[in-house]
């Protein structure tokens, strides 16, 4: 008997599957596609760095130090004679890893906090969201400065610092739709069927907010990469001689009067990654945002 009741299809959520939602959003505007393609090319270059980098990023060549762009060194060499192009390619790996690991953790932690807080509601929700608001009021860079200054500059600490700044926004994004969805009939039906809260949240609420979380993820990845570069520029990045974009600009800045290219190339690299992610996320957000979608 119970078998047959469970077999009755539960009312489906009004929104389409999140993958479908994302595909529609992509097709709605060209800038997202441009952003995605550019970003994927950068990711590919970063992944292939060990194969395509012309030199070892740490190899010093004192004879050819501070050389301008040439056939041997397309982007010139730094004050230790290291090849700028190779360092850029390897630096991309670091930026992308730190950025994506911190944002994925923030998505996971923030998303969970948001869904649980919205689902449980009441005083619990109030306190949690108040805490998130305080966290949200910390500027990313200042929070990063504080955390890294106190914990010391290392890859793990950078990830912690950047993830901390991004948890609150994801909690907010996850919470609002959860509150809207949990009152719907099909969630009521799930409860009547005796589904556990965990199952309801994971199987029936999560897919509804997935698209929005992923879109915000791309925008926050842009911010994360920018924050990491900024911290490295201040001198709080992964320690030298490891190649980081921010660190390369920091070193190049010391020679800015005679070797401007040293800071220009990594600057352009950061700009390109952040701009491509912003194009990707911004176009998608416009297409997914329910407020803007209403007119369709």
């Amino acid at each position, binding site marked *: 008997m119970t078998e047959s009741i469970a077999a009755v299809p539960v009312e489906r959520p009004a929104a389409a599957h999140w993958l479908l939602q994302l595909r529609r959003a992509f097709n709605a505007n060209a800038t997202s596609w441009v952003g995605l393609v550019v970003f994927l090319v950068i990711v590919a270059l970063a992944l292939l760095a060990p194969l395509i980098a012309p030199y070892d990023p740490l190899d010093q060549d004192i004879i050819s130090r501070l050389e301008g762009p040439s056939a041997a060194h397309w982007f010139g060499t730094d004050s230790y004679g290291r090849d700028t192009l190779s360092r850029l390619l390897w630096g991309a790996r670091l930026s992308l890893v730190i950025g994506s690991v911190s944002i994925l953790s923030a998505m996971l932690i923030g998303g969970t906090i948001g869904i649980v807080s919205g689902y449980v509601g009441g005083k619990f929700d109030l306190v949690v969201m108040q805490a998130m608001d*305080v966290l949200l*009021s910390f*500027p990313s860079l*200042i929070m990063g400065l504080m955390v890294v200054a106190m*914990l010391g500059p290392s890859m793990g600490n950078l990830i912690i610092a950047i993830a901390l700044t991004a948890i609150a926004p994801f909690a907010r994004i996850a919470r609002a739709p959860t509150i809207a969805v949990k009152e719907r009939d099909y969630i009521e039906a799930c409860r009547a069927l005796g589904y556990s809260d965990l199952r309801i949240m994971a199987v029936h609420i999560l897919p509804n907010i997935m698209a929005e979380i992923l879109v915000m993820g791309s925008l926050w990845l842009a911010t994360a990469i*920018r924050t990491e570069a900024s911290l490295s520029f201040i001198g709080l990045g992964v320690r030298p001689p490891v190649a980081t974009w921010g660190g390369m600009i920091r070193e190049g800045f010391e020679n*800015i009067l005679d070797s401007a290219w040293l800071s220009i190339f990594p600057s352009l690299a950061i700009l390109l990654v952040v701009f491509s992610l912003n194009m990707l996320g911004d176009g998608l957000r416009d297409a997914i945002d329910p407020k803007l979608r209403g007119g369709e």
Partner: protein
Amino acid sequence: MIGYIVKRLLLAVPTLWAVLTIVFVLARVLPGDPAQTILGDQATQEALVAMRHRLGTDKPIAEQYADFLANAVRGRWGDSLVTGKPVLEEVGKVLPYSIDLTVSAIVLGALIGVPLGTWSALHRNAAFDYIARLGSLLGLSFPAFVSAIMLLLAFAIELRWFPVIGAGGSGPWERLRAITLPTVNLGIIMAAYVTRVTRSSMLEVLGEDYIRTARAKGVPSRVILWRHALRNALIPVVTVVGLYLGILIGNSVLTEIVFNRSGLGKLIVSALDQRDYTVLQGMMVVYAFAIVLVNLLTDLTYGFIDPRIKRQ
């Protein structure tokens, strides 16, 4: 209005407490021994004990927390480990430079951003709108130090219009020259932000029924724009500018480094270099106060622009 202000001020107290608590957690509870960080790996046991005593980190954590809160509020932020001067004094010395820069950046950002965003919204999907949207997205993609370096390269090193280093001389002309590039740097990034917010807010307002009604009864479009649309559209802009102040504070740190201009950012960076733990902790308290103050100001401006909010 006074009742509203008092209420907001009272609400700022728990926020300040929460923000200071986060600072304390960051500074003390997270793993790591500040004394060890300051003295390095080679430090002797006696030196470590002495340093812990000097910092107060040898006391029980609850006592440290109470001390921290009390001292933070009273402005007793300890003495710099490097110069020996009170942190409050060090901060006070550079604060005017940071305030100058922040205020002029906000003014510039609003002066560029609000008209651009409004124009963009009024000509939705026209070529100008498209350029403004892409341009502002590009502006938002610039890490502040990257744009600063590019400005420095172009206008100070190549064209030599501006000094390469520092706040320069003391005359008003010299000060203006020194603040121009940093202001442009922060102002343009902020303008990108304001343009986007103004545009979307304006679009929302222009779609409202009361705008249609005003049009239907023949109100000139100039009056609709100034009296009805813009005023309502600016409400969310103010909130967002308030939120943006936090980003601006972060960006000004980077800008000050590139232009070698004194200010809070330079202070925090030199404290980092010299492992001046007390100054660092004092700076965190400064930022905590700044964050709370910014939130408060945003709330107050909000109430000022939108009378409905005061009555709630």
